[in-house]
Every structure is written in structure tokens, then in C-alpha cells.
């Protein structure tokens, strides 16, 4: 099929797409957007988390045919022209990045969480991000990063 959808606000097109291939494959191998990672390909790790019409989803579980005419947001769309988003900055500042393979999925999931719930409690953060496995950090720095991002966003909203 000819696949047409919006990625990070821009129109994207790919030809000769098999409807059954995953959105993750389309993003990574056809559209040159390798930010979303493939760590399990079966919906267990969250490394491929994107937003589909605003809702967080595992791109590895979404069939290409399902995204026709819909909107997808990936980690590549988080930053502005030359400025990182508050969540991205917080991950760097808090030292929440080690190998970085879980990071893009976590950033999208954290961004989604903070949009739904601008000042989450620790247990809300832990529960909301429980679908995003990280083997390196032990999650403590990720908690710090999400708290920091929430504070900074609140500050940005005030000023």
C-alpha cells in the first residue's frame, strides 16, 4: 500500500508498504527515524513508545496499515529547532541516561504522563512508566528526571 500519515507534524509517505509490517519498522527503516528503539518487538519493554493521535503506544505492536491518515509523534519530534524539550533536558541533567536504549521510549512516555498529569506523585510516575524497562539505571535517576521536568514545566507555565 501507499502509506500516508503525519509524523512529528509533517506529512510522511512510503510506497510498497505491506499493511502488516510494524509502525516501528516504517519509522526506523523506511522514514529514517531511528529514535524509537526495537528491544523486544512484542510490546513488553516500551523502547518503541510513540504517540498515536496523542496516545502513548508501542510502535512495534501497531501495524503500518493502522496509521493511515493518523498522527504519530516520536522522540525526534520532542525538541524544538535548537532547544531540547524540558523532559529531554531533565534526563540529561539528572543523569537518567546510561546506554540510552530505553531513553527515547521513556521520554515519550514521560512527556505523555506530564501532559496528563503535570505534577505526578512518585507512585504515579512509577506506575505510569512501569511499561518502559531500563536495565542500566535502576530507575532512580529517571524518577529524578521526571520530577525535575515536572517542576520546570510548571515554572515555564508560570512565567
Amino acid at each position, binding site marked *: 500500500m501507499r502509506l500516508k500519515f503525519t509524523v512529528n507534524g509533517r506529512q510522511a509517505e512510503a510506497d510498497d508498504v*505491506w499493511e*502488516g*509490517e510494524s509502525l516501528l*519498522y516504517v519509522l*526506523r*527503516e523506511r522514514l529514517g*527515524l*531511528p*529514535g*524509537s*528503539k*526495537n*528491544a*523486544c*518487538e*512484542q510490546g*513488553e*519493554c516500551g*523502547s518503541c513508545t510513540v504517540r498515536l493521535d496523542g496516545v502513548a503506544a508501542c510502535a512495534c505492536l501497531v501495524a503500518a496499515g493502522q496509521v493511515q491518515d493518523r498522527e504519530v509523534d*516520536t*522522540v*525526534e519530534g*520532542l*525538541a524544538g529547532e535548537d532547544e*531540547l524539550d524540558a523532559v*529531554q533536558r531533565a*534526563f*540529561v*541533567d539528572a*543523569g*537518567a*541516561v*546510561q*546506554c*540510552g*536504549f*530505553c*531513553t*527515547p521510549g521513556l*521520554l515519550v512516555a514521560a512527556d505523555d504522563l506530564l501532559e496528563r498529569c503535570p505534577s505526578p506523585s512518585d507512585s504515579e*510516575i*512509577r*506506575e505510569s*512508566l*512501569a*511499561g*518502559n*524497562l*531500563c*536495565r*542500566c*539505571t*535502576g*530507575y*532512580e*535517576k*529517571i*524518577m529524578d528526571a521526571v520530577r525535575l521536568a515536572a517542576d520546570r514545566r510548571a515554572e515555564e507555565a508560570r512565567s
Partner: protein
Amino acid sequence: MTSQVTPYAIGTALQRLDGRSKVTGTAPYAFERVVDNATYLHPVQATIALGQITAIDTAEAEALDGVITILTHVNAPRLASTEDRELAVLQTDRVSFRGQLIGAVIADTPETARQAAGLVRISYAQWPHEAELSSERSDLYTPEAVNPSFPADTDEGDVDTAMSAAPVTLDTTYTTPLEYNNPMEPHTTVALWNDHELTLYDSTQGAHTVRTTVAPVIGLDPERIHVSAPHVGGGFGSKGIPHAHIVLAALAARTVEGRPVKFALTRQQMFSLAGHRTPTIQRVRLAADTDGRLSALAHDVVEWTSKVKEFAEQTAVPSRNVYAAPNRRTSHRLAALDVPVPSWMRAPGECPGMFGPEVAVDEMALKCGIDPVEFRARNEPDVDPETGKPFSSRHLVECLREGADRFGWHHRDPTPASRTERGWLVGTGVASSIYPTLRAVSTATIRVEAADHYRVDIGATDIGTGTWTALTQIAADALEVPVGHVDLRIGETAQPEASVAGGSTGNATWGTAIVEAARALQDTHGRPPEIGAEASGTTPNNPETERFAMFAHGAQFAEVRVHADTGEIRVPRMLGVFAAGRIINPRTAHSQFIGGMTMGLSMALHEVGVLDTRFGHVVNHDFAEYHIPTNADVGDIDATWIDEDDPYVNPMGAKGIGEIGIVGAAAAIANAAHHATGIRLRELPITPDALLR
């Protein structure tokens, strides 16, 4: 004494230099390297544990549109060496373990390759296999050495006599399960063969290790193999020793010369192809006087290896160095089974080997009526019990005492099962950790690119550990310039040869090479050296190892809550206090320690590979069923360290920290679970059913 670098950048919490590229999704991992006209490989894996392939039918698979070629042992190029039987892929019709690589489909898309791999029909002659580990096996053998080159057995004094003479003794068996490293990035190789040159974009802990391992196997001059791994999504040992998939990708690339072959293992494939930690059965015997002074310590280990290639985990080795006891004995016995090849997993040896003894010490402390922190302090050796050498630095007791203070240990009623809060039984536990301070050999080159601009090249790797950042700090201090003046390049065989990121040797080895290069630059070109000046340095032997025993140490504390009705177990709090020399970067180090401790929590409560011995495969081969902790499984985990000044280990005074965080963590949790419930847990992982009595 090793001449020390004056720390300016060292010890500061410099932000991770690769942070920005990782949060924007632009750091290229192996599969993401830009190549033209890619092909995709999907492997065919054996579905029996032992036997012979009698027929292969590829007709249906080959008929699929987009299939380029299918490789099996019948048509695959011959390898130059099949000595390493793990790496000798597609060379015979023999199947040695379930999941073994026995074929490969190369196609235009990964979907086609996978579909075609499923259409390849293999017939086998199946032979009876063995996949059951037990200490009763009659074929257990003593390996010549255990990883990497320790003697398999040691015996000092007379453990048996000490055991019969002592007023307090313990003779108990502990087990740790089959475990999988599971870095988040699956093992990936992108291979391109062009005119007798092989390029590998690989997810590895050592670019040069891949080159030197693969070269003799495929029969290429090492200089013709180019390995690149600037960003690696974790390894934990499983990307340390190159595995068979790299060779398969190279063979495939040779077959479709000129077109790159992209091959990423799936999570499920990793369980038979990327190494694992052997299960262990550990008999621990301790003898003590009533004051809790150990007179004997024996640690006898039974574990497995594969028939294909021996890997002997050094499980009993830490028992040679950690406590004073005049009579000591350690041994390793292996069962060679028809299973995939075991390999390094974070702190091989120390990690499983500090579970049995550290639970045993807790049991002994209770028997002697002595606080477990105090019991350990009473058995602190003056010198390394194994070699008789003094320690270059050792602050285990300080870690234990500092941890006890911070953790609030002293308020604890030592009686097991004495504290209940709203239906939860609450307990606390402690364990020691130890990890050797080792170094390998590497070379670094420094070139003055412009005034005050230094380019540092070394083929090191960053597997998430922070190498990009820490080596930049070390180089800056070695050159006595701000970090902004250093341009570090790592991850390529095009750079000077460097050792694998393993054994917590990275910073010590690579850092020392950089310091040597900086000193050579200053010695030969003065200060400041002229533009264009260049010098190299290689990690020298450390003569101080003749005089001193070198280890990092730590103390692990855990609080455990067990639900009285359901047996649910939670770990709301962990604290690790470490003494690991000078910490190069507190920000990255803190995360490394906590990450290690969390993997220890994972070992304590979650991780177990369930091997179906009838078929020789691991049934729970994915994240749905092989559990690692999620964010919601962990509580408040903190790590701190004691400032340790050790001028003997290396010019930075730094000991490795990548592994010690996991050592002892599972024992601390098991000890805390006993304190909470009165149930002694000698088998990992600890699951609710074991806590319901």
C-alpha cells in the same frame, strides 16, 4: 607508588557527553548505521538439543519474492578455523544445543527473511541429550582453570578438622538460577564485505575484541576487518565475548558481497545465542568459635558449562579473599551439558559467589548471637587471605559501619519475625561485596590539533557506563587542560587497540593509557606541545601488583516487607556503601552503582531462566516471562561511597565500579527476608510461595 594525576576534572559531576544525542534519538546504534541497499538476515535455529541434520528443504522458502539466498551447512562458505566451536557456524550437520544457528535467510526485507526462515524444513536424527544440572551427577569434572585463569581448587589448612573441632558450625547448600544479561539493545551486527575487506557495525563491548576474535575464524587479516561501535545499548558481559551471530553475519556478507547484511537478534533469540549465567549449586561450610571468629571457610561449587565450549564461572573465587579464616577450601566442579554456551554476566564469579557465603555468614552470626555487621568486622583479614599480601586499600569494615549508621541498622531487634506493620512483616539485612581491581592493556594516541585542542583516540567502548565522559575527564587532567579542550574518539578499530569493556577494567586500563600518552606528549614535545605534535602511550604492567592485593569493597543493606497473608515481597529500601578508590564522575558512578544494585534486586526476586530439560530450551525466553524489575518494582535505592585514596592501583587512583554494585545485593535481600519472616531462603529467586508457611 604510581605517579598520580592531579584531579581537577576527575571527581566532578560532568554531564554525560553523549546525553544530548541519546535524548534526541540521534546517537547511532549498530542497526541504525546508514547503509545503502541493505539486506536483512533472519536465522534458522535448531529445534532439537542434540543430533544431526539429515535433510534440509529450502524450496518453499526460496520461492518467496525477495529472498536473496539461504545459507546452511551445505552451501555456506568454509571457515578458516573451527577451533572455537561456538563460533563455527554452518560448518557441520551436528546440532549441539537447541536454538543453535543452523541456517540463515538473506532477503530484501526483514519480514520476508523471517517468513522464509519459517518455511525452511529441517529433518533431524535426534540423539538423547543431557540438560539437567545436579551435584549428584557422576560426570562432574574439575576444569583446568576458572574464568579467566584462576586455579579451580584451593586448599589451605584443614577444613575438616577445623569443622569437627569448632563449637559452632554450618554446612549448607545454596543455589542461584540460570540468568540472562538482557541488555536493552539486542545483539546486532551490520556486516559489509567488499573486496576482501569486512566492515562490522556491531553492538559490542570491544571493537578490537571482535576484530581479533573474528579474523582467524573467517581467515581474514585483522587489518582488513573494521569494527565500529560508538554507541552500545548495554552489554553486562553478553557483548564481551563475541558470539556466533557475528560470524553468521560475516558469512552472509561474504555471500552477498557488496550489499550490507543487517542482523539483529530478536529478544527471544538472545536466550540461546548471547550467553547466560550458569546456574550454581554452592555448598558452604563455616566453623567459628563462640565469639564468631571463623576458623574454617569452605565453598564448593557445582555449575554447568556447554559441551560446545567450556566456560567455567569463578563462583568460589571471592571466598578466597573476603574473610580471614586459617582453614580454607574452594572448589569448582562442572557438568558439561547440551546447552547453549554460558558466558560473562555482570560480575561473573563474584555475583553468584557472594550469594551463598553471604547468606551463610548471616546464618552463622545468628548462631553465634552476634550482630551480622559485627560478625563481618570480627573476620576482617589483616592481609589478603589468599596471597598473604597487604591490600592496596581496603575499607570493607568502614563501608559496613557507615552503612549501618545511614541505614538505621542499630534500631533493629535482631530477633527474626519480630516486626509487623499493617499486615507486612518487616526485616533488614546486610551483606558484603568485593570485586577485584584489574587492568588490561590498551594504547591511546593524543594529537595536538590546534592551539589548546587535543584529539585523543583509543578504541574503547561506552556501553552505557559513561566512557565518553569519564575518559574525557581523565584526558583533561592528564593534559592539565579544561575538558572543553579534549576531543575524545572511541569505539573504532581505526583507533589504537583497546581492551574489552569488562571486568570493571575500562577506566583503569584506558585511563592509564591516556595518562601515559599525555606524559609522552609532554616529555617529547614540551609544554605546551606544538600543533601537530603526537604521542602514544600504552598501559604498562603495574609493578605494585607484586606487593599488594587490589580489590574494591562495599556493604549492601536492604529492607524487605513480606505480606503476612500473600507472601508478596517488596524491597522498599536499599543502600550500598562502596570503597572503590577515587570516583571519576559522581553523576555517572552513582547511576552505575544503583543500576548494579537494582540488577541484584532483580536477581533476588525476579530472574530465573526456566529450562525444559526434556527439550533443552528456555521456555520463558522473553520479557513477558523472564522478569526484570520495572520502575514500579523498585523503591528507594541509594548508593554512596567512602573517599578512598589508593596510589597503587593506577595514576587516577580509581578502581572499577561497573560490577561491584550487583555483588552481595541479593544476599542482603535474602537475609532481610529471613529477618522479616524467620524463613531462611537459600534458593534464588525468592518468590511468594517460599514465604508462605
